[in-house]
Each structure stands twice: as structure tokens, then as C-alpha cells.
């Protein structure tokens, strides 16, 4: 049994979904209501691997909303994540992925200190951030997407916005070790972490965002921001490939230019239909086939019976582990999403 802990993209989105699913008590409610709402198992999922193996899972809605971070209701945000984890564990789920902001909140507020949630002692071995698979998929999107657009990585600069984060640093490690990218442009807020990353990589150039965006042939956006970001096409090099690994994914709708190619980052397509309803709710283009790579990681771990916190802790993702999850990903029928967001 695998699990996915997810949340909706905004209060507006939550209202619509609650209405569509027929829960009037949850529709038309303000943020206060969601701050008090408990986690719920809202979907059961059946996935068939390309090998024919079949697994079952649950989707747990944490009732977290990004507005809780934007309005500094941190205690509510923390409760949502811990309560959803306790809920998943109580259902007897072997391995659960922390989707969207869940893993970011876990890391940022050091929730490993809060092992005891009421009468449940959290067993962190049963959870994964899914970040190793997400980082692997983003790297595949960089490599295959560039090839698809005729961008030669050997001649190209790749900017990583959010380079010091868990996913960002893993993407840097992979691109440095496994590709012949001409130069990595490292962008993040914390200078000390940036310098440590540069030292670890033995390369890469630390840059301001505007400077990096103007020079990069490929931009990997993996910074986490509750409100998304403002970016203008005129500030980007043309042509360029922009991998939007943020949540929610909104760069495609903001950047409409024939020479700027946007790809939804960290999304996979499965070779067979998945029996669930939740992906249409989170606005996937092909809901039966497309999903977040972090969710797919818990499915892969369940298929392989690797019941362990495969991705855990900050900046622990190695190239070897990315290769390991990548091979299992391919074996079970997952592929990086390579289609471009329509201009």
C-alpha cells in the first residue's frame, strides 16, 4: 500500500473542488475553516506497472493551502502536514510521498522534532519527499527537452533558480556529473549555501537572478514560493527552454512568446491509465496518465518493495540514488513529460 499526501493550489481552487466533489460544508469557506479542517482520505488508487504488477494506494488531502504560508499561519500549516502524516500512518500505508509544499514545510520548520502526534508516534521510514525522482525527471526534461529543441547542452548555459534547495542541488549534481553542459549558473537567496554548493560541485557560477536569466539557454525553476513568481519574457534569452518545477505551475501562462519554450517540470507520464480521480482535480492535462514525479516515487518504492524513506533530509540526494530511482521509474512505465506548454 502506497500513499500520497497532497493539497490544493489556493483557497479559490479549494472552494471549487469542494463544490465539484459535493461537499457544501467545505465549499465557500474562508481560510479559517481550512486552518481547522482535518486530513481526509479522498481517493483510492490502482496502478498497473509496465511489468504487469498491480498496486493499491490512498490519496490523503491534508487541507493545507499555500495562503497559510503567505499569511504566516505557520502553526496551522505545520499541523496540516503532521496530522496528514499521522492519518496516513494510521491507515497502515507502507510508503507515503509528501507532495507539493508538504515536504518543504517538513524541512523548513524541522518537523522531525515532532515525532509524537497525539497517540501516534510517526515512523519517518514510512515517508518520502519524492525529491530524488523529481530531480531525476527534471534532469531528463533538461537533457531530452534541449535535444528536442535543438539546443546543444555542450554550448549552453543552464541556470538553476533555487540551486541550494533539495531538488535544485540534486539537479546541479546530476548536470555536472552526467552531462557536458557548458556552464551552470547558480541562483539562490542564501550566499553561504551557494558558496558551499559551488565548492561541492567544484564549478558553476554564482549569479543574480536577472543576470542569469539573460544568459541562460535553459532555465530550471525549482524555487519554492507560495505565490508563484513574476517573470517577463523580455528578460530571458531567446530562444530558451524553461522547466517550471514550481508549484503551482504558472510560468506557462505568464510567458507567452514564440521563442520561449515552457515545460511543466517534475511531471511524469505513465504508460497505462491510472484509476483515480484526483489528478483531474489538480488540473493535469491528461489526468489518467500524468502525475507529479514525487507521487510516482512512492508508487515506484511500493512496486520495488523498497519500504524506506528513499528521499529524506535536506541535500542528501546523490547521483547514484537518482540513477537507481530512474531505472526503476523506466521499468515501471514512467516517462518524463516532454510536451511544451502551448503559447
Amino acid at each position: 500500500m502506497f500513499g500520497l499526501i497532497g493539497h490544493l493550489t489556493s483557497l479559490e481552487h479549494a472552494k471549487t473542488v469542494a463544490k465539484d466533489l459535493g461537499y457544501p460544508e467545505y465549499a465557500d469557506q474562508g481560510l479559517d475553516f481550512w486552518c481547522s479542517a482535518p486530513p481526509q482520505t479522498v481517493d483510492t488508487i490502482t496502478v498497473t506497472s509496465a511489468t504487469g504488477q498491480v498496486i493499491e494506494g490512498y490519496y490523503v488531502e491534508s487541507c493545507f493551502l499555500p495562503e497559510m504560508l503567505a499569511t504566516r499561519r505557520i502553526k496551522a500549516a505545520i499541523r496540516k502536514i503532521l496530522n496528514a502524516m499521522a492519518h496516513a500512518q494510521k491507515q497502515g500505508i507502507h510508503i507515503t510521498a509528501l507532495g507539493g509544499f508538504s515536504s518543504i514545510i517538513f524541512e523548513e520548520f524541522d518537523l522531525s522534532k515532532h515525532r509524537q502526534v497525539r497517540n501516534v508516534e510517526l515512523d519517518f521510514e514510512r515517508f518520502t519527499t519524492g525529491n530524488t525522482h523529481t530531480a531525476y525527471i527534471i534532469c531528463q526534461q533538461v537533457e531530452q527537452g534541449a535535444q528536442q529543441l535543438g539546443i546543444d547542452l555542450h554550448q549552453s548555459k543552464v541556470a538553476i533558480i533555487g540551486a541550494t534547495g533539495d531538488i535544485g542541488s540534486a539537479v546541479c549534481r546530476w548536470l555536472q556529473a552526467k552531462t557536458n553542459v557548458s556552464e551552470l549558473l547558480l541562483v539562490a537567496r542564501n550566499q553561504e549555501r551557494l558558496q558551499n554548493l559551488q565548492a561541492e560541485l567544484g564549478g558553476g557560477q554564482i549569479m543574480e537572478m536577472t543576470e542569469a536569466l539573460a544568459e541562460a539557454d535553459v532555465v530550471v525553476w525549482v524555487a519554492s514560493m507560495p505565490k508563484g513568481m513574476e517573470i517577463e519574457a523580455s528578460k530571458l534569452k531567446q530562444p530558451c527552454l524553461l522547466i517550471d518545477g514550481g508549484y503551482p505551475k504558472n510560468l506557462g501562462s505568464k510567458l507567452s512568446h514564440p521563442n520561449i519554450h515552457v515545460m511543466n517540470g517534475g511531471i511524469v507520464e505513465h504508460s497505462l491509465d491510472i484509476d483515480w480521480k484526483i489528478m483531474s482535480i489538480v488540473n493535469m492535462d491528461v489526468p489518467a496518465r500524468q502525475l507529479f514525479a514525487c507521487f510516482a516515487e512512492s508508487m515506484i518504492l511500493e512496486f520495488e518493495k523498497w519500504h524506506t524513506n528513499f528521499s529524506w533530509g535536506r541535500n542528501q540526494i546523490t547521483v547514484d540514488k537518482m540513477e537507481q530511482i530512474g531505472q526503476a521509474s523506466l521499468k515501471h512505465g514512467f516517462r518524463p513529460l516532454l510536451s511544451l506548454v502551448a503559447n
Partner: protein
Amino acid sequence: MLQTATIAEELDFHSEAYKDAYSRINAIVIEGEDEAHDNYVRLSGMLPESQEELIKLSKMELKHKKGFEACAKNLSVTADLPFAKEFFSPLHQNFQVAAAANQTVTCLLIQSLIIECFAIAAYNIYIPVADAFARKITEGVVKDEYLHLNFGEQWLNANFAAAKAELQEANKQNLPIVWKMLNQVAADAKVLGMEKEALIEDFMIAYGEALSNIGFSTGEIMRMSAYGLVGA
């Protein structure tokens, strides 16, 4: 649960403001345990096959009551019992009416589900911000309350088909009263370091789990456990 030790350290358990709020919250707990005792005794008459167990549960509630009386004494607080009696009177009244009509299902919903879940939520939120003496006592009590909840769950689960409609109706009658009760004590609870939204959330978690164990579907649980919350 999540209010950290730092917050507990900031509370002055001996300040007048804390003791004033404590006099009402503590009284509610004492009165709640006392009413729970009476309710289980009453239920034991309605469910002869479970009489022995219900009497055992009722005795545990009296033990809890004594523990919380000791907590008040420890902080030199006099519990405001008249306030607490008034606070519980709508639920008390509903229980008495249901018992007189021999509505076992409604009585179990009020005592074994609503009151127990309310107690579990409040105790779980209180424990991290309690003074050391009260924390130890409350930790012992909350373990017992899960057993009490379990009695109601098991009985209602075994009789689910027959009890379902009455449970839904009783939920409509009684849950809005719980939200009102919560609003009434929100300011006092905050002085003790307990936040209203955390109390509501913990109540909905405990109550939702109980409804799930009894046999309700996710959709039914979402509707039932949020009933009357808005507008309360």
C-alpha cells in the same frame, strides 16, 4: 500538540489572568467528568448486557474528576462550577431527553462520541502547554478516554445499520451545540495556550476517526463532522 515548549515556558501559571481563565476551564473539565460518570451509569441501565463495562467506565470518570480537582488545588484555583453547569446544560438536557425516550444511539453519540472526542481534543492540545503537575495527570486521563470512545464505536459499529439514521439526526441536533461551547471558552483557552482552530481540528480528527470506525464513508464523515461549524 504542536504548541512548542517555548510557548509553555512563556505561560505564567501563577498569574491572575492564567488562574482566572483556569477557574473556568478546570471547572468545565471537572463538570464534564462528573456528567460523564452520571451518563455512563444511566447508559448501564439502558444496555444491561454491557452493564459491568459501563459501570467500570463510569468509575474511571470519577477518578479523572478527582485528578483535575487536584490540578486546581495545585495552582490554588477555585473551579467556577456554576459556570460549568451552565456551560454543559444544553448537551445535558439533550442527553436527559434522549435517555427518557430510551434513545440509546443518541445517548451514545452525545456521551461516547461527542463528549469523549471533545475531551480527547482538549486534553491533547492542553498537554504540551500544561503545568508539570497537570500534564502528568492529563496524560493518564487521555489514554482512558480513548477506551471510552472505543466502547461507543464498537457498540455503534455492531448496530450500524439500525443506528445510522438516528446517529445522523443526533449529530445535527448536538454538533452545533459543541461549536457554540467551543466559542464560549475560546478566549479562556487561549490564555492557557490552547488555540481554537487547533481544538476544532483535533475534535474533527477524533470524531471523524470514530465515525469511520463506526462505518460511515468519507463523504458522510466530511458532512457530519463539519455540520453547523460555519455560523456557530
